[in-house]
């Protein structure tokens, strides 16, 4: 019957070792794919990375979620089937083996054993048998005595030890099956089937949760899920989102979670010590509620749902900002109120733009010793290093230079064409080379590092001084007055002719115009275009000195206008002016019409929680326990058998030994038993 033989050979194949090993290998290789290709990224990312052709190819193969792809699950199922069949096929055999003493072994077959010996003994039969059984039980063997041969009189002592080894096989392989089944339960097979049949549909639109249609929602009774939700402080959630393929599903919860507060503790060195969410959980059925604090490694389990601390982010912190108009030649600002994760419309000139506030951080711990670039310090020479390593306690290495740069916030300015420039501003001044600056970083794309503009602080530790100076330097109508004052201070003493004085003032105004149009770049352009090559360096030096001198006078003028006393020429003011010139220069490349200075904030955090229900967990744990027991039984319980065929007529004893595993230990053990039994037989 061909049908039967096909079934039979299929059975043979599925339960064969070769098939099992092939499955293990394929599984291992498939698993590698999933670690090399980042899994479960948003689909557009893949499309960008691989191009449309490969994207659709990989998509069809399910490579973006290998471990949940149909083919991977099929391999797993094959493994389960193959291992189950293997267990079913071998277990009865193994149990029989375990129980059997094989007391019907024939003399002939014993003589064919690789490990056997024969002794002669003067002792009578019953004595021999007693000695042998005594010896064997003293060595952990259980034995059974049986009549052997047709001629009567012969006695076979059959003994075995370590039978539980066989149980090891049953345990490990059953464990594999149990673990896989547990995994499949949590792999949410029912949901997959519902999806396949069209009862559930993945939602791909970015819409508010309460507008998600029922076909994309799962009831609280759903036995197994794993989803995420982000809750800002003071808000609550009663659903989680399950990421599935290109979209999501909404899982309704049997309770509501309200986040009272999310807090982070830090070690003195600045590293995070704990992340904790104070939540209030309210049962939707009974209305009763309770407080709990969830921390990393300490989830809350309620109604079979485990709630984990997974992440945190800004939950809409309130920021109060001074917006300095960088195009106006006056030092003016508007106070604006913003919230993280929201955006503001504004227009500079005719161009409408949006300001998108993306993040706020209250703490910025940086390693000042490394200048914050994250590069570890290079070796100073092996010997001094070795001395440094010896005798240190490894306790404070790397922590000496940590400092907190204080609060910062990030925002993007997006123009009408959708181009965005990203900014990162610190609230507090930062010390660089013994001087204090307000820092604002900008970058054109997330791949670049921030480049920082440093706004110098004036003698009152405020930014106003700089802003006033900047206003004058950009105000063309002020240039003649600045030039006049500069001439007054620069040309004192020597009698200078009126024409020379006028020339001096003219060039001052010219330099200010050049700088005021495009910063240092403006000055450089003029020089490269209009000055002979040989003169360029000298002229550049002169212009720079004029610019600094004039700017200093401009600063004095701005102070006078603001009703402040003039500055003494003690070097501090000059440095301030030099810093200001650099900052004004940088602003030409700043890309934004405003500088936002953070003055007050009210931090609101959001906690990212992961919620899971995984009934398969306990199945998996049970399977794991079986696995460990089984593995140890298989490796460390050695099954051995000994037969002693006692033939009183001839006074000979045939000794044979076997083990299901031939190892060196077995060889040694055989030698020892052979020796000892030989001695025992001597009488």
């Amino acid at each position: 019957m061909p049908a039967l033989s096909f079934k039979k050979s299929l059975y043979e194949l599925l339960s064969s070792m070769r098939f099992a090993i092939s499955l293990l290998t394929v599984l291992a290789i498939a698993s590698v794919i999933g670690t090399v290709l980042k899994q479960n990224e948003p689909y557009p990312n893949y499309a960008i990375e691989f191009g449309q052709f490969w994207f659709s190819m990989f998509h069809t193969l399910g490579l973006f979620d290998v471990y949940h792809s149909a083919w991977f699950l099929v391999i797993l199922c094959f493994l389960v089937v193959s291992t189950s069949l293997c267990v079913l096929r071998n277990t009865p055999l193994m149990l029989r083996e375990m129980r059997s003493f094989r007391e019907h072994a024939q003399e002939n077959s014993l003589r064919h054993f690789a490990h056997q010996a024969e002794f002669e003994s003067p002792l009578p039969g019953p004595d021999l048998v007693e000695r042998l059984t005594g010896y064997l039980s003293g060595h952990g063997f259980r034995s059974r005595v049986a009549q052997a041969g047709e001629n009567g009189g012969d006695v076979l002592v059959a003994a075995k030890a370590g039978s539980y080894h066989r149980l090891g096989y049953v345990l490990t392989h059953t464990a594999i099956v149990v673990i896989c089944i547990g995994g499949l339960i949590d792999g949410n097979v029912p949901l997959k089937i519902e999806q396949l049949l069209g009862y559930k549909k993945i939602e791909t639109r970015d819409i508010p949760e309460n507008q998600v249609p029922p076909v994309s929602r799962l009831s609280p009774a759903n036995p197994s899920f794993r989803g995420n939700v982000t809750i800002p402080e003071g808000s609550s959630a009663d659903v989680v989102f399950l990421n599935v393929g290109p979209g999501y599903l909404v899982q309704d919860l049997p309770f509501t979670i309200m986040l009272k507060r999310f807090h982070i503790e830090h070690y003195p060195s600045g590293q995070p010590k704990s992340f904790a969410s104070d939540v209030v959980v309210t049962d939707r059925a009974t209305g009763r509620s309770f407080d709990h604090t969830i921390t990393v490694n300490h989830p809350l389990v309620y109604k079979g749902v485990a709630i984990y601390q997974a992440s945190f982010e800004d939950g809409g912190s309130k920021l109060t900002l001074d917006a300095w108009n960088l195009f106006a030649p006056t030092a003016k600002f508007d106070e604006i109120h913003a919230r993280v994760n929201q955006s503001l419309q504004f227009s500079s000139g005719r161009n409408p733009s949006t300001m998108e506030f993306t993040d706020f951080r209250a703490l910025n711990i940086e390693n000042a010793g490394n200048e914050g670039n994250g590069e570890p310090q290079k070796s100073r020479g092996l010997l001094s290093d070795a001395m440094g390593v010896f005798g240190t306690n490894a306790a404070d290495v790397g922590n000496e230079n940590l400092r907190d740069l204080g609060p910062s916030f990030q925002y993007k300015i997006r123009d009408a064409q959708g181009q965005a420039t990203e900014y990162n501003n610190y609230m507090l001044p930062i010390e660089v080379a013994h001087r204090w600056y307000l820092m604002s970083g900008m970058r054109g794309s997330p791949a670049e590092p921030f480049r920082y503009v440093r706004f110098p602080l004036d003698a009152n530790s405020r930014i106003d001084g700089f802003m006033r100076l900047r206003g004058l330097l950009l105000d063309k109508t002020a240039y003649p007055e600045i030039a006049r004052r500069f001439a007054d201070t620069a040309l004192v003493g020597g009698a200078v002719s009126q024409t020379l004085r006028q020339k001096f003032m003219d060039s001052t105004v010219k330099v200010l115009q050049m700088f005021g149009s495009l910063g240092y770049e403006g000055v450089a352009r003029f020089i490269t275009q209009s000055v002979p090559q040989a003169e360029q360096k000298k002229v550049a030096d002169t212009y720079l000195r004029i610019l600094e001198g004039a700017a200093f006078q401009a600063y004095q003028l701005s102070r006078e206008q603001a009703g402040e006393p003039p500055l003494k020429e003690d070097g501090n003011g000059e440095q301030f002016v030099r810093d200001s010139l650099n900052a004004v220069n940088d602003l030409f490349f700043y890309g934004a019409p405003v500088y936002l200075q953070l003055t007050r904030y009210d931090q609101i955090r959001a906690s990212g929680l992961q919620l899971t229900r995984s009934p398969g967990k306990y199945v998996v744990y049970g399977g794991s326990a079986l696995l460990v027991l089984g593995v140890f039984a298989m490796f460390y319980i050695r099954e051995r058998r000994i037969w002693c065929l006692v033939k009183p007529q001839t006074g000979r004893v045939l000794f044979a030994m076997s083990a299901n595993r031939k190892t060196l230990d077995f060889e040694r053990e055989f030698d020892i038993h052979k020796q000892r039994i030989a001695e025992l037989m001597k009488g």
Partner: protein
Amino acid sequence: MELTQSSGRERGPIMKGFHWFDWVYAALLVGGVAYVFRLYGGTMDGYEKGILLLAASSFAGLGWYWKPVRVLLLAVAGLSLLSIDLYHGQLARAEQVFWLKYLISSQSAIMWMSTLFVMATVAYWIGLLARSEFVGKVASAMTWSAATMGLVGMMVRWYESYLISPDVGHIPLSSLYEVFIVFCIITALLYLFYEQRYQSRQLGAFVLLVVSAAVGFLLWYTFDRHAYGIQPLVPALQSYWMKLHVPANFIGYGAFSMAAMVGVAYLLASKGVLASRLPPLEVLDDVMYKAIAIGFAFFTIATILGAMWAAEAWGGYWSWDPKETWALIVWLNYAAWLHIRLVKGLRGPMLAWWAVVGLFVTAFAFLGVNMFLSGLHSYGSL
């Protein structure tokens, strides 16, 4: 090769075989536990008392099963206590007190460990090539001393972490630097165990090569990257599971590395290289199997513990995170190896090659994943 312990042992009263040193060892263990209870009993909770008793009984069992380990444990305990005593609770004394500065502050002890391991490797090779029993013994002694210094270094490092601040204190199993030390110590101890079991020192030349390579990495990490600082634990690592998961994993890694190096010896010997100096092929094969068996057993436990930890920290016992996945790949690889050897009964160069390749798979799971793939595991990048 004679059979000293294991199955050939005569049954009889257990106590009969006790040497005076066994009694001293037992007395010191009991005394130590009693002393700790008297000193800290009031402030320990049930878990801590349980762990202390469990630790003491495991040390007793270990010492009984493998005699030389008693000397090791006593030496480690003695030196660590001496070091702690010299500290007087002040970190700065590491650089002031002579014995701390040059011998038993954690960094010094670890440097001594590194030096001794490298010297032992050289000595094993000399012993192997010159067929010198004596040099071989010296090499063993150096390996024992290296393991001692390494363990002292770890103990003192543990203590130092509490001196920084009580909330920073933690068992040193949390950074790449620390686990490399653990790897060196465990691999060396596993080797020493088999060295004694098989009464053969020749394999030290091979096994200690991996240990020396790890020492090389440690030194580079120390001098070039200054990565030896004690860092406080980030929240994800503050877990009891870590203390079990990491050592179990490293017994696995250590055993697999040892198997691979024995595999190298096997391949050389089967080609006739060094064959007359190395133990017979059957012995090499046997050691290789034993190492993979113990590695597989502990790696299984480690992976399960890891899953339980993940269930508590990340919300799922299996997330197909690259590290988890590679652990599975390593596990599957050795499961296949064991099947081929035990079920098919295959022996010979093919299995030795496989064991060597296994080391690369294991090394990728241990280091490569951190360097090249991103995931939830946080020992961080190099």
